[in-house]
Structures are given as structure tokens and as C-alpha cells.
């Protein structure tokens, strides 16, 4: 998309240079001229040009001074400096102060100047396209932002009403339901809600700034266990926290990681296991924390181990299919905070995840 013609402003105190320039280039470009930096600035208020060419040696202000003055208010046009003198200081000055694209010696070579102008315009054009793309992306991001926010509420709100109705129907015994359909409705609604919450988690992880604060792993793990215990009261939880020193990390992401991993450990238990258990161990060191989550559940098929962190991957060898997003969120959250994860699993025997998270203590800068 090459819109109209390239617009050039040429500033030079020698009129015959301006005329010569116009004579050679007016068929190719839209040319504006000024005899002083002052006049040039006046003109720039009216006309948006793509390229500015200025002579260095002019009375009152030099080309470099002029470029330096306008670079904040007009950063976009490409700047070309013309001069008859080959003064190294001028060149250095021009490049450092005036953000000059190119430096051309007088008298100019017409072919060279053509080439320089076209190159300059190409950069101008590319930069503008880039800017437009960035604006577009920011807008899309912002819309996504608002979309997720309203989705979280608009989808959840009617779901919570459904759960409320189910609760009420149990409370007043008004529904005769010998086949347990209401329970089925409830379990579907809970599953859907779980998925909505996962999407919100994913989104918050990708958008939120990382924030470091003190973390007490004992209380963090206890919160998790309190939340998951009701899902399977048979499970015995063992925790072992070795935290002699402070740990600083991103609370939101670390609890997302723990919640997802503990939730899996609770969910994928063998139905006939006599002593289902979940072992949680944390070891805090000055530079990192190592957390292991071990269960004696159904385990993961070895051929699936490479895929479990992929988005929407679901292992087919279990009767409790998940949303396929939990471990993906774990991996994404870990990459945000610079952590790593390892998994070992034996199908039919259990799974152990081990994660390490950097300790962002004060001395770690």
C-alpha cells in the first residue's frame, strides 16, 4: 500500500540549491522548500512530510540544531543532512543529537540522493505499519481483557443460580428425583464452572504482572488441603515443610500451580486403593524452593508423559477426563516465574511432580 507520493521538505539558505533540487526531483516527489529552519518549522505545522532534508551550514540555526529541536515533537519524519563540508564532528553530532537517517555530501549525486530518499521512505513506511499493528494489538488485547472479565461473570452468574436452585430443592424436598438426575445436573454444572475458573486462571497468569511477596508454605499448603479434602475424605495428606528462611515469590502463581497439582493428585486416585495418599514436601533454600507432590493414584502412561503439559491434552486411560488445561496452566505459570517441573510416574502406582521455584529474596537482585 504505497499511498500517494513521498512528501519531502528541503531546507537550505541558498535559493539556487532549492531550485536545483526541485528541478531534479519534482517529478518523483511532492516537494516543499524553506530557506531557514524557522520557516521550515512553520511549514511543518501545516504539512505532514515523510522526509526532511536540511543543509547543515545555515545562519541562525544549523541543520543539526534544527533536527535536534524538532525530534521530540516530530519524531516520525526521516532526516537527511546535506553539507558541503566533511566535518567529522558535524557527522557525529548529527547522528547522536538529531537522529539522522543519512548524511549526504554536497553537491549531491542525483542517483544516490534518489536511493537515499527511497530507502528513508521505506523505513518510514515500515515504522508506521509497525505502529499501526501495535495499536491494533493493544486494542485486541484490551478487548480480550474485557471479554474474559465479562465472561467470567456472565457465564458464572447463571451457573451459580442453577447450583442455588439445586441446593434449595434439596433443602425443601420439593423435587422427587428417584434416579438422581439433580445430582447429575449438579456434577455437570460443577465441571463447567471448574473449566470457567481454569480459563480465568490462565488469563490472569498471562496478563498479571509478577509480584513477589513473602510466602509461608505451611499455611499455603494447609489452605490447599482444606480446599480439596472434602472431594475425597479417604485421602491421607502428609506434609513436610522445611522452611528455615524467608521465601519470596509470586503468591498467585504459586498457589495456582499447587492447586492444580494437588487437585490432580486428589482426582486421579485408584477407586479400589485401600490407603489413598497425597504427599507434599517443601524445601526452602536461599536461592530456591523445591516442592514435591506425590500420590499413589492411577499414574500416567509413559507414552503420555511427554504430552501432559500440552494445552487440551487428555489422557484417555482414565475414567475421569479433565479439561486438559490444568497442567498447561501449571507450565505457563512456572515459565512466568522462572520455575521448572519434573514428573515421574508409573502407571498403576502413582505420580510424583517436582517443581523448583527461584527464591526472590532481597539479596537476589
Amino acid at each position, binding site marked *: 500500500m504505497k499511498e500517494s507520493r513521498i512528501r519531502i521538505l528541503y531546507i537550505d539558505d541558498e535559493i539556487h540549491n532549492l531550485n536545483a533540487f526541485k528541478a531534479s526531483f519534482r517529478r518523483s516527489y511532492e516537494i516543499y522548500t524553506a530557506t531557514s529552519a524557522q520557516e521550515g518549522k512553520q511549514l511543518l505545522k501545516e504539512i505532514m512530510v515523510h522526509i526532511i532534508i536540511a543543509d547543515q551550514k545555515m545562519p541562525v540555526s544549523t541543520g543539526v540544531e534544527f533536527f535536534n529541536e524538532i525530534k521530540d515533537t516530530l519524531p516520525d519524519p526521516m532526516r537527511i543532512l546535506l553539507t558541503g563540508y566533511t566535518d567529522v564532528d558535524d557527522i557525529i553530532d548529527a547522528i547522536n543529537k538529531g537522529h539522522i537517517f543519512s548524511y549526504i555530501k554536497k553537491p549531491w549525486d542525483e542517483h544516490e540522493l534518489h536511493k537515499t530518499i527511497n530507502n528513508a521512505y521505506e523505513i518510514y513506511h515500515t515504522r508506521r505499519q509497525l505502529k499501526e499493528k501495535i495499536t491494533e494489538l493493544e486494542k485486541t488485547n484490551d478487548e480480550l481483557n474485557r471479554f474474559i*472479565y465479562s465472561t*467470567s*461473570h456472565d457465564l*458464572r*452468574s447463571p*451457573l*451459580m*443460580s442453577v*447450583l*442455588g*436452585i439445586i*441446593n*434449595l430443592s434439596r*433443602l*425443601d424436598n420439593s423435587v422427587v428425583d428417584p434416579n438422581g438426575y439433580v445430582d447429575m445436573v449438579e456434577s455437570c454444572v460443577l465441571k463447567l464452572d471448574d473449566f470457567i*475458573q481454569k480459563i*480465568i486462571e490462565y488469563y*490472569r497468569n498471562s496478563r498479571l504482572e509478577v509480584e513477589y511477596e513473602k510466602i509461608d508454605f505451611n499455611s499455603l499448603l494447609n489452605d490447599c488441603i482444606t480446599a480439596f479434602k472434602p472431594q475425597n475424605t479417604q485421602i491421607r495428606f502428609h506434609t513436610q515443610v522445611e522452611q528455615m528462611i524467608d521465601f519470596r515469590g509470586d503468591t498467585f502463581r504459586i498457589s495456582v500451580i499447587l492447586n492444580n497439582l494437588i487437585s490432580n493428585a486428589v482426582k486421579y486416585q485408584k477407586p479400589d486403593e485401600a490407603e489413598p495418599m497425597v504427599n507434599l514436601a517443601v524445601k526452602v533454600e536461599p536461592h530456591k524452593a523445591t516442592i514435591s507432590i506425590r500420590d499413589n493414584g492411577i499414574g500416567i502412561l509413559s507414552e503420555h508423559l511427554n504430552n501432559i503439559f500440552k494445552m487440551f491434552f487428555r489422557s484417555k486411560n482414565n475414567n475421569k477426563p479433565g479439561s486438559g488445561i490444568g497442567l498447561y496452566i501449571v507450565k505457563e505459570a512456572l515459565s512466568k516465574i522462572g520455575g521448572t517441573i519434573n514428573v515421574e510416574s508409573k502407571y498403576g502406582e502413582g505420580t510424583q511432580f517436582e517443581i523448583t521455584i527461584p527464591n526472590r529474596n532481597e539479596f537476589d537482585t
Partner: protein
Amino acid sequence: MNSIPDLRVILIDDNEIDLLLHERLITLQQISRTVLSFVNANKALEFLSSNISLPRIPPTVILLDIQMPEMDGFEFLQAFDAYPAKIKSQCHIIMVSSSLDYGDITRTNANPLVIKLLRKPLLIKDLKETVEGIFKDFL
């Protein structure tokens, strides 16, 4: 829960099903005999301001939704904050929402007018405990 005979509950929620649900829960559990429902926070404010002239304002629990069109829960709180102490001291506000938005939750917890934020679906146990907590000093 019959210890406060003239306790009334005001429900403010744009979702009519939730209003009905909460009303039924409160009557079933006999938390209060008087339940007033408003689908619009503005109407609730109007009602409360009409109460100012009453010689005695009955103890009131307000269950307030966060996300509502026109006037949301936070706007309601801001407007209600300007009401005379006579009525404010009798009204105990519980926010009820399905929001998981971190901003909503922290804003609610930071508001001095709000006793507690309860999640939807509203569980009778949570509601009872919260209401009992409010009035334990009055008994």
C-alpha cells in the same frame, strides 16, 4: 433465629431467580419474617431513605449483589455511606456475588460498610453464621 423478632432482610440483586432463591432460603430457615426484594439498587436506596423518618428503624440485613446494571453494588455503598448514622447503624450489609474478579473481591473486603462477602450460590450455613455473628452482641 427467632431471637430478633423484628429483623428484616433487604435483597438487592438484578437476577430475579437469585432474589427468589435467597428469599426462599431466608423464609425456610426462618432467619426473618420480612424479606424485601429489589431488582434495582436505586429503588432500594429510595426505600431506605423513606425509612429515615420512622421513629424506630428495625434491625436490617442487606444482601447486596456486586454486578448490576444502572447502579452496581459499589455505587450503592457509596450512596448509602452518605445516609444518616441513625439508619446506617441499623443496616448490616453482606455482599453476595459470583464474581471471581480479584479487584471486586479486594474492593469488597476493603469497604468498611461490608460485613462479609459471601459467594453464590448462597449457602444457608454461611448466611446463618454471618447473621448470627452480626447480632451476637445484641442478644
